């Protein structure tokens, strides 16, 4: 080609469109007085079990957006435990993005008058969800004992970006070679202001402390 060349300056962040939608989501949550929580972990770490425990204690104050590749299993479990739930089936996407959450929020309107907490259970995945803002107020990462205490350093994208680390299945301490102090130290090293709670979604241990923390943020 012999035509004239032109450079077009852009300086555009690739995540800009997602982040703009995330801001709109956040405004919707703020206007409704809802505390938005993005809950992330690998598959099987205990996110849904935690939500069942929270549903038992919070009842109609809790609403949940469930994100999975397929099935409504998780939304069904949460509803059975007493909270409102809306299921997103991504059909293949490995994470939720702001657009998916925006669609879910519009489907959930009008919001329940009793709702106070809006948890978003992300797709089970330690890599991709950490990169997508959803419009939540708090990002929670969960690591469970069977996964091993060496995983924090292996997945820095997520664990350096979260506000809260939940170390789950703490009831298995003593049965597994997991050193909570090691995991906590590594997380604080890459994320100095992170809040850390050792919990068992199965037994309920530590759940009240986590709820108190959420209430402190909600104000």
């Amino acid at each position, binding site marked *: 080609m012999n*035509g004239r060349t032109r*450079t077009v300056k*852009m300086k555009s962040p690739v995540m800009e469109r997602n982040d703009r939608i995330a801001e709109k989501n956040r405004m919707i949550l703020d206007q409704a007085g809802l505390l938005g929580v993005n809950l992330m972990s690998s598959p099987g770490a205990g996110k849904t079990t935690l939500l069942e425990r929270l549903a038992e204690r919070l009842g109609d104050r809790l609403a949940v957006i469930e994100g999975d590749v397929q099935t409504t299993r998780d939304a069904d479990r949460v509803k059975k435990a007493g909270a409102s739930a809306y299921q997103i089936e991504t059909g293949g996407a490995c994470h939720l993005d702001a657009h998916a959450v925006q669609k879910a929020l519009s489907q959930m309107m009008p919001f329940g008058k009793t709702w106070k907490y809006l948890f978003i259970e992300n797709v089970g995945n330690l890599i991709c969800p950490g*990169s997508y803002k959803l419009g939540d107020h708090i990002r929670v990462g969960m690591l469970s004992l069977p996964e091993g205490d060496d995983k924090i350093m292996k997945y820095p994208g997520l664990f350096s970006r979260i506000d809260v680390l939940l170390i789950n299945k703490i009831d298995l301490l003593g049965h597994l070679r997991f050193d909570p102090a090691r995991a906590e130290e590594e997380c604080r090293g890459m994320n*100095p202001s992170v809040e850390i709670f050792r919990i068992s979604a199965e037994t309920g241990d530590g759940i009240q402390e986590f709820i108190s923390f959420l209430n402190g943020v909600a104000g």
Partner: protein
Amino acid sequence: MHELSLATEIVRMVAEQVPQGCVLNGINLSIGYLSGVNPDSLVFCLESVIPGRDPGDVRISVNRIPALLNCLECGSNYTTDDLYEPCPACDSLRRKVLSGRELTVDSIETVEIE
């Protein structure tokens, strides 16, 4: 990360900026060392999803941005391309990331069609 969906988004953003009567010739990206993006993988995916062009028709350049970290122990700032590098002044691993997570389309090159 999933470089393919990033590539698809980049193509969408870039398509809006190509002036009338021109075709895309090049894309100039900045990728921070802590962005979680693999540049080789992203370039490979871009070459696959740019519509109507053969790989190699559109030159993709990547500017790597080092991370700027602030040591929380001694307060000094240092640049690195490795998140696990301790503070060169005091060897601490307690630090805050000031920059290095960027993923931006800086500019595009276009050429007028004859």
